[in-house]
């Protein structure tokens, strides 16, 4: 169990993917059962791992993948943070996706790649070496593409193409950076950061730029964010996944790894790379918010909001201070939970009532109160209003920025909060306060099992987002875990 636990987490979704691919279209019940079963089993495994890891155990599995390059799956606390997030949200998204698609076409393919995606995401989290990481990172790119292009119409295909061109270009830049670094210091293990002394500062800076530039594509850092709004052509469960856990998070997570486990905060600070990165993240935060304000399509607005929010994580990582790290890490989780809520709600609205444009939201709160309540929680959390979880992140980031003598970041946070309010509150206003258009038929929100499977996951994540905020200082809360991570190594 000790060494094979990480392998199990990779193996389980592979089984689900295989089953999904293999079962014919019509056996949807079996496919659903397999997917849910695996997702649930993973949750149990993760629960066990959380307990064990909290007690200080580190699970590791390695084998020599190429001479001198080990394939290492390592479950440290940071990895487990991401794994837990993805496994938990995956279960909900699976439930949601089953209801969302019901009996749509091409479901074996969809669920197959869906599971490959979770495999890659957990793999990204557990990677113990840079090369292992790259493997999963690319797998993630590939597994996501069929999901983005799932609908197969022109828009989706275009989105898929744009997605690929951005992400592939990014990953080769990252690969080049990693290989360059490896040619100087040998194989890079996250658990034992390489010794960078003696390497010219310029080289290190260039490598850093290559890596962050490459990873920044997935993390949607300005100006590399162009693919993300396009990828909105994907079905809602995919968008939810893309934005909350899988793709953008992998990028952000990788940047955290890069700064803390490859370069180390000392080197980053010495090279003076933190401040420019923080500045770039700040630009992204503001730019994404402004662009979100200009969108008239609901999902696009959410997409630009993601562009903005994910950079909080990067901001936290680049500020290099105890509170900022915690803020960044905890936002990794909080943003995931809140954003997945928003996207699942947006999908439910589109699915049940055909609402896509913001102008169509009028009166949605009256027709689908549970959905809109969940949406509201997510939106308020994004603004950073307490007691939703987003507030906790913002608090830690703010204090962290001050600790790092970067008071200007606080102004960025404040400006972003205001912009977030400016683009989220009108949505809530429309949904709750304006009357629905007269031609919209009344529906019963939770009439069938399918409806409940569609809407309740969002309600659950909304409650979790609230709970993560209200009970932020419990030991296993995201904040508690992020603090544990930070104390376990990043505060030295």
């Amino acid at each position, binding site marked *: 169990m000790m060494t094979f636990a990480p392998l199990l987490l990779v193996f389980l979704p592979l089984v689900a993917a295989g089953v999904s691919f293999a079962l014919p279209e019509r056996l949807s019940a079996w496919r659903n059962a397999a997917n849910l079963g695996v997702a649930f089993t993973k949750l149990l495994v993760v629960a066990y791992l959380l307990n064990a890891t909290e007690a200080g155990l580190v699970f590791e599995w390695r084998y020599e993948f190429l*001479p001198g390059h080990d394939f290492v799956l390592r479950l440290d606390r940071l990895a487990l943070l991401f794994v837990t997030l993805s496994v938990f949200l995956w279960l909900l998204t699976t439930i949601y996706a089953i209801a969302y698609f019901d009996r749509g076409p091409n479901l074996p393919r969809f669920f197959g790649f869906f599971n490959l995606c979770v495999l890659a995401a957990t793999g990204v989290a557990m990677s113990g070496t840079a090369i292992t990481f790259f493997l999963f990172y690319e797998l993630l790119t590939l597994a996501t593409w069929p999901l983005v292009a799932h609908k197969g119409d*022109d828009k989706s295909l275009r989105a898929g193409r744009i997605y690929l061109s951005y992400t*592939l270009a990014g990953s080769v830049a990252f690969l080049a950076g990693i*290989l360059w670094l490896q040619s100087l210091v040998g194989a890079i293990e996250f658990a034992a950061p390489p010794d960078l002394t003696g390497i010219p500062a310029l080289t290190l800076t260039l490598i850093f730029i290559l890596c962050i530039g490459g990873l920044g594509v997935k993390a949607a850092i300005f100006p590399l964010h162009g693919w993300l709004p396009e990828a909105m052509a994907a079905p809602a469960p995919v968008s939810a996944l893309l934005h909350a856990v899988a793709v953008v998070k992998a990028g952000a997570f990788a940047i955290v790894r890069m700064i803390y486990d490859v370069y180390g905060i000392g080197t980053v600070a010495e090279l003076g790379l933190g401040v420019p990165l923080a500045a770039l993240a700040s630009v992204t935060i503001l730019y994404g918010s402004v662009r979100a304000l200009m969108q008239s399509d609901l999902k696009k607005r959410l997409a630009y909001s993601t562009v903005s929010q994910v950079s909080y994580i990067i901001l936290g990582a680049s500020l290099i201070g105890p509170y900022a790290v915690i803020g960044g890490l905890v936002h990794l989780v909080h943003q995931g939970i809140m954003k997945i809520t928003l996207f699942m709600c947006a999908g439910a609205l589109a699915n049940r009532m055909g609402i896509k444009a913001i102008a169509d939201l009028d009166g949605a709160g009256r027709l689908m109160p549970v959905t809109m309540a969940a949406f509201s929680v997510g939106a308020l959390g994004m603004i950073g209003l307490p007691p939703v979880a987003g507030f906790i992140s913002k608090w830690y980031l703010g204090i962290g920025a001050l600790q790092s003598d970067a008071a200007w970041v606080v102004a960025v946070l404040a400006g972003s909060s205001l912009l977030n309010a400016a683009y989220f509150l009108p949505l809530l206003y429309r949904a709750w306060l304006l009357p629905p258009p007269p031609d919209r038929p009344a529906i019963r929100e939770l009439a069938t099992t399918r409806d409940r499977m569609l809407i309740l996951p969002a309600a659950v994540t909304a409650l979790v987002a609230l709970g993560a905020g209200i009970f932020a200082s419990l030991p296993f809360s995201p904040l508690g875990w992020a603090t544990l991570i930070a104390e376990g190594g990043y505060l030295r």
Partner: protein
Amino acid sequence: MSPLDLLMAAPLGFMAAALMLGPSGRWLILLAAPLMAGLALWLALLPPDAAYLVGQWDLPLGILLRADGVARLMILATALVIGAVGLHALAEPPEKPGHAAQAETFWPLVYLMWAGANAGFLTTDLFNLYVTLEMVSLAAVALAAMGSLAAALRYFMIALLGSLAYLLGVALTVARYDTVDVILLAQVAEADLATLLALGLMTAGLLIKAALFPMHGWLPPAHAAAPAPASALLSAIAVKLGFVILVRLWFEAFAAVTGPAALHVLGGLGAAAVIYGSIQAMRQDRLKPLVAYSTVAQVGYLFLAFPLVAGTVEPSGAWAGMTLHGVAHMLAKAAMFLAAGLMLKAVAGDRIADLGGLAQAMPLTVTAFGLAVVSLMGLPPSGGFTAKFLLLSAAIEQGAFLYAGVLVIGGLLAAVYLFRALSACFAPLAGAGPDTASRGPVTGGVQAVAPLALAGLAIVMGFAGTALVDVSAIEAPWATPTVIQPEAAP
């Protein structure tokens, strides 16, 4: 008993049998595929110093067969590719409508190519290499002729030219050193004009066979016109033999002769091939020419590796990268051609734009195509990635940023053109109304097994990197020479 000569003799036997059996000769593949695969595996697992003198004659008259790492991997991949392509051809006879007799000529040619390729990979004798080269060329031209006679004829002429250039080089070598054995040459070769001229002629001739830019002109028409199984063999095997012989020349026989500048000529051509082939592939709107130009680009990587291999003291990484790239390309490209053949047959057209709706109609085939795309682009996990990773590492370690850049950009360009084809499969059926938005299943799953298996192998290669690298290092020229040192002829 040694698998070395069996690997050459068995296909020849099968060829003879196929010729005699006529139409029913096609069933021989059911025997040949497992047998050859078994032999190839046996070979791969032999102890490292496996060399074998045919007929017990000493050099230079005797023929030395030597199974170094390159040969082992190439033979194994050849067995897998030809086996899979052959089994596939059982289900999907490679014939144009109304030319049923073609299928009959297909089988002997396959075995001829198999024998020639295996012999070429094993032998260390420049003249024997010439013979094997001609065997393979003959088979390849005949296979290409199954599609378009004009293209095949053009191929034939150019290939013949290449053979002659090579032969002229061999003649000069004989004149200069009175031996054609690679191992003996390695000990005596000097950098004088005759040697260089010989090397240059042989290289130029082999580059034609290997279809390296700018000598690739014959390849796209021939590959595009041939039936899918034939194209698969042409792209996977025919060009690889030229490459392997070049490896023998540049890193074994004349390793002491070649300088960095000459290596950069090859590397530069390789880099140009990557870019040029990719650009041409991007411009194609028909599927098979696209895949054919992708071969042009992929061959470029093999030669791009030459300066990288020579550039380090311990070039194991680059060496393995080069070798594995060849193997991965064989598997992936064969899979891709087979899948493309099935797809084009299903849509009864040859344009990329015609492929709409296939993702639903033939998911297994499209999956095979997709997996091949992954490996060809060099995305993990796949053999293509392992190879490209090793090459890129080597390039960066040596500070060869130009080659590193080409490696990186080539992957991206490959993504552009290959994903264009792949995403066309996901598009809805062209010109169809909403009612008929999807095609019915056009083929059963059986035909898709072979491309799927090949593409799957290309992917699986990505997980066995260490083992493959170890195999590729067996008796590699840069390693400590442990070959049988035959006595010089009295």
